[in-house]
């Protein structure tokens, strides 16, 4: 597969991860394109055992991390979560998407990254720890705190239960 093919087939998936990490589409496009530029640089040197997806994911997390660490490159937690209301399906899904992205944006960067890598990218704790360059214990801590914070910030009618499998009881929608 050549590089352009890879971008066409897998770019959207990584753009989705990027919007979860950054919170908005413009920043997601910037992050993804910056990472793709770096991937292109090494594309011909990737060996057959290296998945471009994993490599690109690593670049994105590292790039994002260095963006966070630069001075004044902080996102603002938004004060208000917009109303969901709209009868139109697409508008409703957009509203839900925006609510979730805002809730993610309100999380500290490491909690957000841990949640996205564990529960959207479906990486293991060990894989997440290796990508984030932290311990497995830290991954667990960040994911646990991120889940708790997300649960607290999402509207109750949007998310009935977000837990770690410790709560019991029937849930009615």
């Amino acid at each position, binding site marked *: 597969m050549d590089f352009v093919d890879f971008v066409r087939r897998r770019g959207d998936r990584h*753009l989705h991860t990027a919007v979860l990490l950054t919170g908005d589409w413009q920043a997601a496009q910037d992050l993804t394109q910056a990472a793709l530029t770096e991937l292109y640089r090494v594309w011909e040197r990737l060996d057959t055992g290296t998945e471009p997806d994993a490599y690109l994911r690593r670049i994105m997390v590292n790039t994002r991390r260095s963006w966070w660490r*630069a001075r004044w490159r902080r996102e603002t937690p938004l004060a208000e979560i917009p109303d969901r209301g709209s009868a139109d399906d697409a508008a409703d899904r957009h509203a839900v998407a925006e609510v979730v992205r805002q809730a993610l944006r309100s999380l500290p960067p490491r909690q957000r990254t841990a949640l996205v890598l564990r529960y959207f990218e479906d990486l293991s704790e060990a894989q997440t720890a290796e990508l984030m360059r932290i311990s497995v214990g830290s991954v667990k801590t960040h994911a646990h705190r991120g889940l708790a914070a997300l649960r607290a910030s999402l509207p109750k009618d949007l998310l009935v239960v977000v837990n770690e499998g410790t709560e019991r009881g029937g849930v009615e929608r």
Partner: protein
Amino acid sequence: MTVSPDENEEYGMAELKHLLTVAGEDRPPGIDLLDGLDLPVRRRPARRRGVLAGLTAGAVAAGAAVALTVVWTPQSAQATVLEAVARNEGKPYHVEMVTQASPGGDPFPLTGDFDPGSDSGHLEAPDGGRIIMLGDTGYQKLPESMQSSRGMRSPDKDGKFPKVPKGWKPVMVPLGENAWLKLPMDHVTWGFGSSTRSFAQDPQGELDAIRKADQVKEEGPAGGPGWTGERYSFTTPAVKKWFGRESSSGTVDIDSEGDVRALDVTLTYPDAKSATSVNFKIVFSAYGTPVKLSAPDTPDLYTEQSLHRLLTGRHLPAGAAYGIPIY
């Protein structure tokens, strides 16, 4: 929909995954990853600044020479700089830097070592100020005493402090000769509120400005002790941050080995009320030299809670950042 208790264990995770999926399904029209992707021209090693773009061979007869046509395409200045930026990414490094806010700021020198691989680093100021960064935890050097605010009322919801009561005098609380504050890195405040000083948590991160540059030009030769190379200038367009617009411009020096040696970047904030720009002059060295850092060994190690209680007599709410600005 009713979820039974037996299914509840997986329900929360399934719901979260569903929401994370939905959160990326409203992609606006017009986002095309291939459009505007600035792919660098493939190149040979750093010393050779051209790219072999084509090769043709003329017909060969017995004893005749092969005719070759080699077309060299100069690599763009931006591609050269980005390659240099990527070359040492992730390796430990040493920095000497001077930061200065304008208007009115004095130059403030800092020295430090960073190891992105272990997520650690430290910065020191000439007056003894220091911060050690170990992953998620920071250790900030405290002065030997700090002013107590016992008896003072708390700031209001806008962060405004009440007037000092008549007759009130500041009380200095001794903290110890080697006092440190341990706090989560997420709580570290880099104190642009300070009039003259600022820190960068990851100086190499300032090189990221170049990734967004809309103009990178070769300016001419550059050099320093034991190295020669080239200087490049760059400018980045203004982008909107939560605090207002930010743009940057500066120069980066790259030596003949392809390493970034120096960065001189000015970040400009036209929307800011006070200081409107800050300049970083950063010299990088010792790429790859291991950096060994550890938590300070001291009996006077405070947490945000313990320090807050000592200085104010009050309990710091759970999750609140103590927010001591870094100088």
